[in-house]
């Protein structure tokens, strides 16, 4: 437990192990709502793989998520950003290494936002990053109105626009079993995976069903923007299933191998 404002954050610490000396450290930032649950196994497998390669990993459950204190409705986006920064500080003090921040999906948005709160810009690992927070919020709201999309005519719908208006007026929405509060929704809405002014190293990894694996057109454009801003971005696509959303819990060993070799290059 990491003692922070609002109560303890549940953390799992994987100390560097394996035959060689410790070479680095990483903080894992989980995705939003159900995607967090779907991706637990992959996060744990990657954390163990990094640990075995000499990289200490801290997995933090953000306020109101997983086994941390508080309810989902107690959280706000800025609290989550601060949680990430605190996790980095704790791990740096504990290991002596400047940790890189590894995010999955909306966890990448939080990772980028946390950079501004940190004393020095960390390197970043993006797993299937959410590029637009607004798009991610829209998709979450759509879960409530799915059945209406192809049925009734436009005017009769309780659409996502109405749900957004409720959030903007301060209401909390119950969506897919989560209490979505304006403090989270509006922060997510404004979040964007914009290139950082600080020049950092970024391992940008996506899974793909294409043969050979490929990044999506949207990701390719954003990678170019980050590179143009001066960051050292290495995009990698591997074959695999979208494990953060599959019905059954899925594993993607190629992603773990690619991630481990990408970050070990930083530690060399």
């Amino acid at each position, binding site marked *: 437990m990491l003692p922070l404002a609002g109560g303890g954050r549940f953390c799992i610490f994987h100390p560097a192990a394996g035959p060689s000396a410790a070479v680095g450290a990483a903080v894992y930032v989980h995705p939003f709502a159900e995607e967090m649950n779907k991706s637990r196994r992959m996060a744990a497998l990657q954390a163990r793989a990094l640990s075995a390669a000499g990289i200490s990993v801290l997995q933090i459950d953000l306020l109101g998520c997983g086994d941390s204190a508080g309810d989902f409705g107690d959280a706000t986006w800025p609290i989550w950003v601060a949680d990430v920064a605190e996790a980095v500080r704790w791990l740096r003090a504990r290991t002596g290494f400047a940790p890189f921040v590894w995010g999955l999906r909306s966890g990448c948005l939080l990772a980028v936002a946390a950079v501004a709160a940190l004393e020095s810009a960390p390197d970043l690992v993006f797993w299937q990053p959410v*590029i*637009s927070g*607004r*798009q991610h919020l*829209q*998709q979450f709201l*759509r*879960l409530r*109105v*799915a*059945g*209406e*999309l*192809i*049925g009734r*005519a*436009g005017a009769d*719908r309780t*659409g*996502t*626009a109405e749900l957004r208006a409720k959030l903007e007026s301060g209401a909390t929405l119950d969506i897919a079993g989560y209490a979505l509060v304006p403090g989270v929704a509006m922060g997510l809405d404004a979040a964007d995976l914009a290139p950082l002014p600080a020049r950092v190293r970024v391992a940008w990894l996506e899974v793909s*069903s*294409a043969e*050979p*694996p*490929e*990044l*999506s*057109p*949207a990701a*390719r*454009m*954003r*990678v*170019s923007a980050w*590179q*143009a801003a001066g960051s050292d971005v*290495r*995009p*990698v*696509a*591997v*074959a695999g299933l979208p494990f953060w959303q599959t019905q059954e819990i899925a594993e993607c060993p*190629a992603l773990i*191998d*690619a991630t481990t*070799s990408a970050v070990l290059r930083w530690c060399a």
Partner: protein
Amino acid sequence: MWLHFVRFSRGPPQVVVDRKGSGLDVHSEVVKVLRDTLSLKPGGAPMAEDSPLLGAIPELDSMAVVTVITTLEERFGFIVADDEIDGSTFATVGSLVAFVKSKLGA
């Protein structure tokens, strides 16, 4: 093409993006999304411009429609509002391709 393929001494094949980029084949991207999200077998349902979707492909129920929209949003980087789509958007492969093109401003 957009991509170069390189292989490092360890790990799986890796894809490196070429910064130059070029045109996008919207039709084949949309067909790829449909086949993937609906788990359609290659060579199964026809995917020509005028091939019917809604009502003709049993896998395409309302939840699948949401998945298709979500996947298109993420692949192409746009946001779909509810009032931009209805059943007619998903009438044929061609109508869906036309919708994506309009979102891309192409």
